[in-house]
């Protein structure tokens, strides 16, 4: 319930950022629709917060616990964080070393960390890298980013 209220507050903050920015525009036609939309977001978020508060008051202090499946129980931010870190690391690796190095290293490292047999991980890494290179670089002529170091 607290998380829901926080998410509504985030929506209000987003609307305020857009609304305050819109107010700085000189043209009426450039700001009217964004301002109306911001107003709608704030109104809806306030209704959402009031609904949550009313629900909390009605149910008293003890909040009834919803039954969650085993899979849903694993979906928590600490569980998410591990993969988020992997994705951010891939982005940093692409930025520094470029796609050609970052992708095979990421694929192999990820699969090894999660206990995939080394020959399976190696063959998937080599196969995927070769297919991606053929499709994107050879056939589609994509100018792949080479990274800060090799650019």
């Amino acid at each position: 319930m607290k998380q829901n209220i926080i998410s509504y507050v985030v929506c209000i903050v987003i609307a305020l950022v857009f609304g305050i920015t819109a107010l700085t525009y000189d043209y009426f036609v450039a700001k009217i629709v964004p301002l109306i939309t911001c107003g709608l977001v704030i109104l809806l978020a306030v209704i959402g917060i009031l609904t949550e508060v009313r629900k909390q008051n009605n149910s008293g202090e003890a909040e009834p616990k919803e039954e969650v499946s085993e899979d849903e129980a694993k979906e928590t931010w600490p569980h998410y964080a591990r993969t988020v870190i992997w994705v951010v690391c891939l982005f940093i690796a692409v930025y520094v070393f470029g796609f050609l190095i970052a992708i095979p290293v990421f694929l192999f490292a990820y699969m090894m960390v999660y206990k995939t047999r080394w020959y399976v991980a190696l063959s998937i890494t080599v196969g995927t890298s070769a297919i991606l290179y053929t499709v994107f670089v050879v056939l589609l002529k994509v100018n792949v980013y080479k990274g800060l170091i090799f650019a």
Partner: protein
Amino acid sequence: MIFQAFFEALQSFLGLEIWLILFIGAFVGIIFGIIPGLGSIVAMAVFLPLVFFMTPDQALPLFIAICATGYTGGSVTAILLNIPGTSPNAATLIDGYPMTQKGEGARALGAALMSSAMGGMLSVFLALGMVPLVLPLIFAITSADMVFIVLIGISFIAVLSKGSMIKGLLAGCIGILISFIGHHVTTGLIRFSFGTIYLIDGLPLIGLTLGLYAIPEMISLAARGGSIAKRENVVLTLRGTWEGAKDVFRHWGLWLRSSVIGYIIGIIPGVGAMTSIFVAYGQAKHISKHPEKFGTGIVEGVIAPESANNGKEGGALLTTLALGIPGSAEMVVLLGAFLMLGIRPGPSMMTQYLPLSFKLIQILFIGSLIGGVVCFFLAPRLARVAMIPARILVPLVIVLVFVGTFSHQEQLMDLVVLLVFGLIGLAMKKYGFNRPALLLGWVLGNLFEKYLFIAYGTGGPLFFVRPISLTLIAVLLGLFLFQPVKKLIQRRSAMKDGRA
């Protein structure tokens, strides 16, 4: 003359070359459709340089075949991985993916492929039969009418809202706000770029779509572990796919309605495939006897958007051929191919080049059929994707999404958008905010503003006092009143039964 041109076009299918081109085009379309972030537009753009080495009879069939099969391929990843292969598959995953999780992936694929192929084929019949009716309609539609067409699309944000209606509407409104980033059409002012040159042209569609869907799904799958569907749940036989295909015939009314909606939206330039799929999905939910089941994995939720996204192509092709105005993004590339071949689409396509026009429309029919058949027989094998362990599937998809996003504009900033919207999408998924609603708001927000000011500028405050606009307003009101009136009637009849 029309019949002569029609049969002249039909004769061209007697050669072997045309079939070879059609199969190559269909294969390319499916492959590009399956790879997230690519889609038929990229495939057509890639093949554009080849136009210089081909005749119109070779180049144009190739492009139409790619166009006819791109969305069909895109539905595969939408259903199996919850990642839209192409953006117009975004509505398919709302029910397609839950079906996969329930072990009905093959059935969902069968329904998607059959409705997509048949939607494409029906649109061809409509395109052929409705030429005399459609052309005056296209000329009659003005910006004032467009305002209400877009508003009908926006109204489906509320329909898409699964769970909390407030959260769905909030997601839609934030999508509308995000759509204002970039150039303002009327004044040329750059809005909400926050001093960043990259945001001058607005946010990229590919980065935003894949960020909202692909990254959160993969992070979620990695957290859960295992695979998307349990081995014992996945129906891998052709029977499962065939069951899905039969569902289209069981819900033939829904398929017909959705295909016609797709076709009508397709003929109107500038509205786009995203509107057609969400309008089709919305009407399916609206009219359904059990709207509460939408979003939980029911086959009607797959049939409606898939019929509409391919149904749109016939309409879009007709507008492109007859007026030279591209009815969809794919048709912009096709128009480029026409111009490179020295053919200027327009009224001459209905006179001088009539056999070629018929041929292209017939190719759309055959391309839809080939795409459907090829994917249909591959579907049971494709359904195995849902059983790949997370430790292998997650890095593969993340890498594919990174490369697909980058290849679109070759800008590293697109990857930043992907990451940012990946996290936003994850938070939305976690806290029950509707992601399709945000996407729909983003697609239509800017369009609504643009047409509103053009209509206001040309027609004044009473710009909507026109027959088409008033009809569309009536449709809009009908959409809002349909469910409450239906509930009221049901309640009254229940009360009557109680008294009896």
